């Protein structure tokens, strides 16, 4: 069994579902046009992951090998439908924006992927933490990409925050660039692809830096120049 810190590190960085496993790209690219949209879908996905991982782990000894996939699908579909209904009831306007991508969480490969690869083989506590870590990693990806696209695309940050945090949050929208004309490419799907590519590249650079042993800085004695 992995230690909890290891699980968290895996979900957030080393095996990030969006940046490393490249799973769930369809919702990632479609919904990451603003921070709030990304956060909304990210939280819904995280909840689904925690619940599905926990339940799959609880039943892992009682479900035969040949029917485990249909059972996982049933569990995930039920959870997502329930979450969809709850969002429809309590975050109606956000639900209207996220629209079809809430029910489509069912088809996010990372959820059945974690159920099969992790939760079906590990104890309940570790599985729940794994769901949380993977979900948070996915949410972080959505939020980072969302922030990038929102700033470039429309010059704002946290627009429509009231959809999630209530009327009081209406004013927390930050106009990063005032009187911004907008940059269409960033809002459209190609902008999401390019943005995702850049972030993955950046992550790879950071990973490489960490891996490489730091080069010793040798101070050379300054030799006075000859006049």
């Amino acid at each position, binding site marked *: 069994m992995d230690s909890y810190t290891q699980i968290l590190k895996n979900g957030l960085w080393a095996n990030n579902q969006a940046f490393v496993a490249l799973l769930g790209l369809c919702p990632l690219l479609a919904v990451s*046009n603003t921070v709030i949209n990304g956060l909304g879908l990210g939280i819904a996905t995280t909840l689904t992951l925690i619940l599905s991982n926990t339940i799959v782990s609880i039943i892992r000894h009682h479900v035969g090998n040949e*029917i485990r996939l249909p059972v996982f699908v*049933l569990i995930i579909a039920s959870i997502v439908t329930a979450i969809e209904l709850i969002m429809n009831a309590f975050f109606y306007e956000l639900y209207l924006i996220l629209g079809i991508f809430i029910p489509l969480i069912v088809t996010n490969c990372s959820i059945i992927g974690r159920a099969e690869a992790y939760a079906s083989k590990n104890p309940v506590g570790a599985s729940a933490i794994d769901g949380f870590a993977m979900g948070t990693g996915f949410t972080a990806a959505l939020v980072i990409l969302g922030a990038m696209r929102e700033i470039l695309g429309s010059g704002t940050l946290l627009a429509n925050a009231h959809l999630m945090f209530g009327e009081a949050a209406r004013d927390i929208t930050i106009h990063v660039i005032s009187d911004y004309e907008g940059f269409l490419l960033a809002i459209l799907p190609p902008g999401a692809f390019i943005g995702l590519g850049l972030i993955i590249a950046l992550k790879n650079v950071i990973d490489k830096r960490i891996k490489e042993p730091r080069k010793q800085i040798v101070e050379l004695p300054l030799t006075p120049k000859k006049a």
Partner: protein
Amino acid sequence: MAEKKTSMIKAGLVLGLFSLVGIGLVSLTYSVTHEKIAENERLFLLKNLQELVPQSIHDNDLLADTIQVSNAEAFGQNNEITIYRAKKNEKLIALIATPTAPDGYNGSIKLLVAIKENGELMGVRAVSHHETPGLGDAIDTNKSEWVFSFNGRSLSNLDSKYWRVKRDGGEFDQFTGATITPRAVVKAVLKTLQYYQAHKAELTDG
């Protein structure tokens, strides 16, 4: 053989059990949330309608006083559309039609068109569409003020041949890079006004 049969039956039972539990979970959530969801939908619609026809000018329940009309040519769809009526002291003040502009750049654009009793437009809103972000979505009120250019227009103060975008020799602005979207909206609004003019009596009574 017998063993295989038992394991198959057992697998079937387990699957059935999980289906039942799943259905139970979804039904439970539904029963807790469905009233709230219906209420959300009602309030959202009412909010949209009242943006066009403010509560202060009528005294009836907009959502209760509706009629259904069907005219594929005027409203851009084969289904019946709902017309909401605002009345004060039983007298019609304004009505809101829900036509569709079928020829948007990316499919149909659902509209709300509010018309005063005298045929003057009180306002137009796009309630759902799939127009290109940054180009065609300037029909949304939070993106541009274009849709307000309908306010106060009527068939009597603007001849129907000028109900076009400027590029087609009409009165309404098009957007930079997007002519199809405003063209579709202008056309749908014009058709709704013409329908109102021709069928005013039927829409007012009853």
